[in-house]
């Protein structure tokens, strides 16, 4: 028989499990435009307008105290560059069916970021304005890097006290109502800052008004659940270095099934194990008595 104390113990564990459920349940928001009652900010990158001047790179470095790149050095375009611990944004040149195209690369600021769901200390945070930012209570586990579909977080491997380096959508400026540094610096109006809703409308308008100029897709509208950086292009996006196989499911959703099953296991497993143990205990007692006789 299960005595009362044990029963209560199991019951307690179960209730704890249910309480854990509400705690553990990750926020499964639909790909909404609105975060915390506010509209998300966004940047529209129109790659048909980008002239590859790299003013955005310089402005970004100045705004965040990173080494200033040499803007006149054209040799950087010879190979595809990734963002790095000292470069939060980079412009790459692509040879496409419609000639040379430049495309800026930085954190996409996903609506529901994999890196934020991955972080066990919420060092990665999705701010209600939209930027995804990093803070110092990070353990340096690098799970955010594993979970980012765009491979954006960069880690300072050569430091005893490493930081994660990535674009923060100029959170400190955006909070004050200013534009991100890169947007402000762009001389070709390739970058536009605004609310995500407005910018998606703007992007659609450009496609409708110039159907022959644009490839009819807004990258970042639905990719991995949508992001705060959205892109327009004249050519299919795989030609300018974008992954087009990522799907429209937000990355945190891939772990939701597992996380939901956790409280269920926490509740059912101990009860089941205790039950089996009680049965075998009785059998053992009966067997022992039999042996004595």
């Amino acid at each position: 028989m299960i005595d009362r104390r044990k029963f209560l113990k199991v019951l307690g564990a179960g209730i704890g499990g249910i309480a854990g459920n509400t705690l553990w349940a990750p926020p499964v928001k639909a790909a909404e435009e609105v975060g915390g009652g506010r509209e998300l900010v966004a940047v529209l990158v129109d790659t048909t307008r980008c002239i590859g001047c790299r003013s955005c790179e310089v402005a970004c470095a100045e705004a965040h105290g990173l080494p200033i790149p040499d803007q006149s050095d054209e040799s950087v375009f010879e190979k595809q560059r990734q963002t790095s611990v000292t470069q939060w944004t980079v412009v790459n040149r692509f040879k496409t069916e419609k000639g040379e195209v430049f495309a800026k690369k930085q954190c996409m600021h996903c609506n529901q970021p994999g890196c934020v769901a991955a972080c066990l200390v919420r060092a990665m945070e999705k701010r209600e304005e939209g930027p995804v930012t990093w803070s110092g209570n990070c353990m340096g586990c690098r799970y955010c890097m594993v979970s980012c579909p765009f491979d954006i977080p960069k880690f300072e491997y050569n430091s005893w006290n490493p930081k994660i380096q990535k674009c923060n959508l100029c959170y400190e400026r955006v909070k004050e109502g200013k534009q991100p540094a890169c947007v402000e610096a762009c001389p070709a109006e390739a970058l536009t800052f605004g609310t995500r809703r407005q910018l998606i409308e703007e992007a659609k308008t450009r496609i409708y008004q110039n159907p022959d100029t644009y490839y009819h897709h807004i990258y970042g509208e639905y990719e991995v659940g949508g992001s705060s950086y959205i892109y327009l292009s004249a050519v299919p996006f795989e030609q300018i270095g974008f992954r087009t196989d990522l799907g429209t499911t937000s990355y945190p959703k891939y772990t939701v099934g597992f996380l939901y099953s956790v409280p269920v296991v926490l509740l059912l497993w101990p009860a089941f194990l205790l039950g089996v143990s009680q049965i075998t205990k009785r059998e053992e007692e009966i067997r022992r008595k039999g042996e004595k006789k």
Partner: protein
Amino acid sequence: MNGTIASPNIKNFKDFVAFILKEMKPRGKTPFTLFNVISVPVILLGVVLIVYRFIKGLSSITNLSQDFPWGIWIGFDVMTGVAFAGGAYVLCFVVYILRVEKYHPIIRATVLNGFLAYVFYAGALVLDLGRPWNIINPIVGNKFGLSSVLFLVAWHFLLYMIAEFVEISPAFAEWLGFRRTRKILSGLTLGAVIFGITLSTLHQSGLGALFLMAKGKIHPLWYSEFIPVLFFVSSIFAGLSMVIFEGTISHKVFGEQLDEHHKRSYNDIVIGLGKVCAGAMFVYFFLKVLIFIHGQHWSLLNTKMGYWYLTEVIGLVLIPCFLFLQGVRHRNLMVIRVASILTMLGIIINRLNISVIAFKWYAPVHYIPSWMEIETTLTVIFAEIWVFRWIVNRMPILREAPEWTREEKTE
């Protein structure tokens, strides 16, 4: 009684210190055994490298990169180490929940091994953390990342280490001769076992769930939404294969501690474990086949990665599964041992595939561990064996518990 130890009579703190100091002394007849001669330099070098790594950063001794944030310290030490430690929860289930007496003689060695594996291999995680002093953050609540699988895994590691310590603690109490403490600790065993099995189920699968968000980075032959289930099922036979393998070595090295009864029953134990392995591996293989068919990746089989996949699934799952069956049928321990080694190899390759090899298989420059990463991994393994040996030589792990425990047998 052959091999039992006389418990000390510790009355006060002074006695306690004196006893510990006495026990610290090495027990071996000669310090120059083969194992010592190899392991001591490796450990010393490893310690130097580890100090260097904490001063100069991870890139000083590892080949990790922005493309490959996790190397063998995660893929082998943590992922594989924890899978191999799975024997503890499986055997606890068999011995304490199903109460199959037959496996009782090996339970302590297995739990001790599991406990040390967690302490050392999960402990190796600290080497890999960029900012290890923040490791307390997920525990003390400096912002809880509740939607993170890693948060769950971290907590489960911690709680499971405590549960396993409780499970093994009666052996410590017997060693110290603390009768009352032992009685209390023994009373906690069933609770710790139930808690431990639950935690193991969740974090063994949780380690797999970590990779669910690496979709698009893991080769489609390995990526599946069922990775957590595969990790859990494979931890059963990974752990038991480790028990068979470790037992083979322990019986050679610590043979004089074992009584005749134990030695006689041991063959039956190995055959029984082989049977469970074969069953679990068949289930695992079946799941793999189902996932493969549903994934519709036939065309990928005829590629380099496809051959590698077949090597793992056929060569290191199906074949050892068959060998286990043969070994059990013909009561051939040699075949079972070979099967367990193949199985362990398969687990190493599987965990490394998901975390390192089939991870970003498309990258032009792929991560290959540096010799220093391998060296420090060996350091961790050797250090664990040292502690294991120290404990087995002093406490009733393999040998019979002291006489006085039988008088006050609880449950």
